[in-house]
């Protein structure tokens, strides 16, 4: 379990200092979702966050976005303490949450319009984004006419339109089919993207597209590991280094997940891994 502070001369966009968050509940004890998160992200760096389900990944993004005030510590974005949400930190939520009364075009345009961006500029931008996410033909469709994967792409497009210098994404590609996922990953996380991204994901393959991977413990989420990826793109998934990293991270998560199942650390009998896979598959 290494925990090294990232010290660099590069420009820091985001810093989390000792963030903790507890949810107060009316019917039970407060739920501690994350604890003592220290993290910094450089400009144009892509950092992915992985961890067991329910460990507090979405909660972490919600605090960083400014939607939730942390119970401990604080978030610094572009040198300023975060106290409320801002269009400078774009967020892609775990669900699409599109405005049902607005069509695809208007959903993407929504934030720009609220900020009184000139009509011509809006149009230019929305059209480009529509083509980037592959939905130009669907501009006039309404959210209920789209598949889940299409809705998620609109949500990504809506966040991208903000042109924020920090993009927070909560499993944005999980609902996409394999082929579309590859395209979206290439577009968002490829070398040419030049974006500062904090990406929550369940997929280790996807996490390895980042410059750095942060591993969270089971709830309350703490950082238990941080891996500098340092793979040259295009990535060769059969390369030894890739497989090593992947196996390392998979085992790390597995260990953590095992701690969070039944009280005695056993799996429910129905999910005995060996019944399905000879070796536990890596991703």
């Amino acid at each position: 379990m290494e925990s090294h502070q990232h010290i660099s001369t590069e420009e820091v966009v985001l810093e989390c200092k000792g963030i903790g968050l507890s949810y107060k509940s009316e019917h039970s004890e407060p739920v501690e979702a994350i604890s003592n998160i220290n993290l910094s992200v450089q400009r144009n760096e892509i950092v992915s966050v992985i961890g067991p389900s329910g460990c507090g990944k979405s909660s972490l993004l919600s605090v960083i976005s400014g939607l939730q005030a942390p119970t401990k510590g604080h978030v610094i974005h572009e040198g300023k303490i975060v106290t409320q949400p801002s269009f400078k930190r774009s967020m892609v939520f775990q669900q699409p949450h599109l405005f049902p009364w607005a069509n695809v075009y208007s959903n993407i345009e929504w934030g720009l319009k609220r900020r009184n961006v000139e009509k011509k500029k809006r149009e230019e931008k929305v059209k480009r984004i529509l083509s980037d996410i592959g939905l130009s033909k669907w501009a006039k469709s309404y959210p209920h006419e789209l598949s889940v994967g299409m809705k998620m792409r609109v949500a990504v497009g809506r966040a991208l339109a903000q042109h924020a210098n920090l993009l927070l994404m909560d499993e944005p590609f999980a609902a996409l089919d394999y082929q579309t996922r590859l395209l979206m990953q290439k577009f968002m996380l490829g070398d040419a993207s030049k974006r500062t991204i904090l990406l929550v994901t369940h997929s280790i393959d996807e996490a390895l597209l980042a410059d750095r991977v942060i591993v969270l413990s089971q709830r309350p989420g703490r950082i238990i590991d941080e891996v500098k990826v340092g793979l040259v793109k295009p990535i060769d998934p059969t390369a030894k280094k890739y497989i090593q990293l992947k196996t390392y991270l998979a085992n790390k998560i597995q260990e953590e997940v095992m701690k969070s199942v039944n009280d005695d650390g056993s799996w429910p009998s129905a999910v005995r891994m060996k019944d399905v896979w000879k070796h536990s598959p890596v991703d």
Partner: protein
Amino acid sequence: MKRLLLSLASIGLLVFLWEWLYRSDIINLFYFPPPSQFITFLFEENFNLGLGPERQNIFVSIVASSLRVLIGLIFSFSLGLLIGMGIWSIPLVNSMMMPIVRLFAPIAPIAWIPLALAIFGIGNVSAVFLVFMGTFFILVIATIGALNSIDRNLINVAKTLGADSSQIWRHVIVPSIIPNVFTILRINFIGAWMAVLAAEMVGLRDGLGAIILIGRESSNPDLILVGMTLIGIVGFIFDAFLIKIQKRIFWWSHINI
């Protein structure tokens, strides 16, 4: 199309039975003349019904009744939304006002007639007041209910997209609640419609309700049946119009995404 034909056929059958019963000797339908009778009467009277100074063209009556309901509903819908949002957004006001609103809401529109006539006298204001009082409180409750069940995630999305609180109200909260509140309005339209007709019978002496009253006073079953039929048809058209608005303008009420 097929459904329309079926509806027309069932109405046609009803009319046919009615005409046949009237002409047969099975029961005495003197006070219940069939369409052939009262429609002829309508033409003979040149579409002007009533006696002496109360005599009026039926289209004037239709417009009078419809406008009373329409204006009342426009007032109660917009004020219901506005007041509902006001009450909801201030917790103290919310807990103070809600008992009062809930006390007034169950009072049927018709029950306001004596008060309306006492305050506003005989006239259009009374009729509009009735529709308003009969629907306003229900719409306030509907607004608050819709606000309580609003999708917080949409508000969060709006915040991260840089919307300020007035923009969130205008562009997220209002479109979220309007379809639901409109549905409640539509459900309560019938009550408001009946209140206006009742008011026209007891006091206003014009509009569709008055036709029936005058028919009764002059013992003219044709007049009563003309009034009843028109009330049915106009009410039906009004309701169809509200459904159209709901489907065309506020279509996302029943859509979950």
